[in-house]
């Protein structure tokens, strides 16, 4: 019987372990993946549908271009840093530049029902499976 974990830290650890398990799984390998690797993504399943989540800190909504076609998703955009010229820099770790990434997921997406949210530097794409792509159960006569 699975234990019910009420401890939130235990829950986080479980999530981290689950992500570790799915780390670079060969799940996307069968499909050619665009020209770049940015932004890093995590893909989740939610029932029939898929959720793609990416970390895009510092990227404005207006600088993000998201396209969905069939089972292909394209994430493109530009990240810019604007700092005052007069400052002297002690540390520079953040990167700026443009990106263009395409991924294919193994379901056909209903492009009209895709929802995209970008909040606190996290981009979430809700990709509902197209009705015609959903599995049908066959009744035995």
């Amino acid at each position: 019987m699975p234990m019910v974990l009420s401890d939130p830290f235990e829950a986080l650890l479980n999530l981290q372990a689950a992500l570790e398990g799915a780390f670079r799984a060969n799940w996307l390998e069968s499909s050619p993946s665009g020209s770049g690797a940015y932004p890093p993504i995590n893909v989740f399943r939610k029932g029939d549908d898929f959720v793609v989540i990416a970390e895009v800190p510092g990227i404005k909504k207006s600088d993000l271009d998201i396209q969905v076609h069939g089972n292909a998703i394209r994430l493109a955009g530009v990240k810019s840093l604007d700092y005052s010229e007069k400052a002297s820099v002690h540390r520079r770790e953040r990167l700026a530049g443009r990106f263009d990434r395409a991924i294919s997921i193994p379901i056909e997406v209903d492009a009209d029902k895709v929802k995209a949210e970008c909040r606190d530097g996290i981009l979430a794409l809700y990709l509902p499976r197209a009705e015609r792509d959903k599995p049908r159960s066959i009744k035995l006569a």
Partner: protein
Amino acid sequence: MAKSQELSVQEKKEVAPKEEKTVPARFYVPNADIFETDSALTVVMEMPGVEKKDLSIQLENEVLRIEGRIDFSKYEELEPVYAEYNIGHYARAFTLSNKIDQDGITADLADGVLTLTLKKAKEAMPKRITIK
């Protein structure tokens, strides 16, 4: 210049803490930019997924300690199938070399980026000396 450059992925670094955490979960080091002007020190940190209410900023003994927590309840009903990064809280601490005006610290969180502006204390401001 920045526009023509291809953006590359930065692997998340796990925190290697001096003090041990009492919780087993992983913490990550947020990428930071630090720069200084005559009057202030600015620390910019990337903490995607952290909300304002889950952010703690402390300045004690000239050590600036920032911790950002992720609300991972959002991931509850999601089953991971493919992952390129892990999710965790963020923690980072800096020892400040200049005297900072404790009341003059402002913090702003936007699009997962925390900008901390630390005003220098009056005695730490550079003095201009005019030659007679």
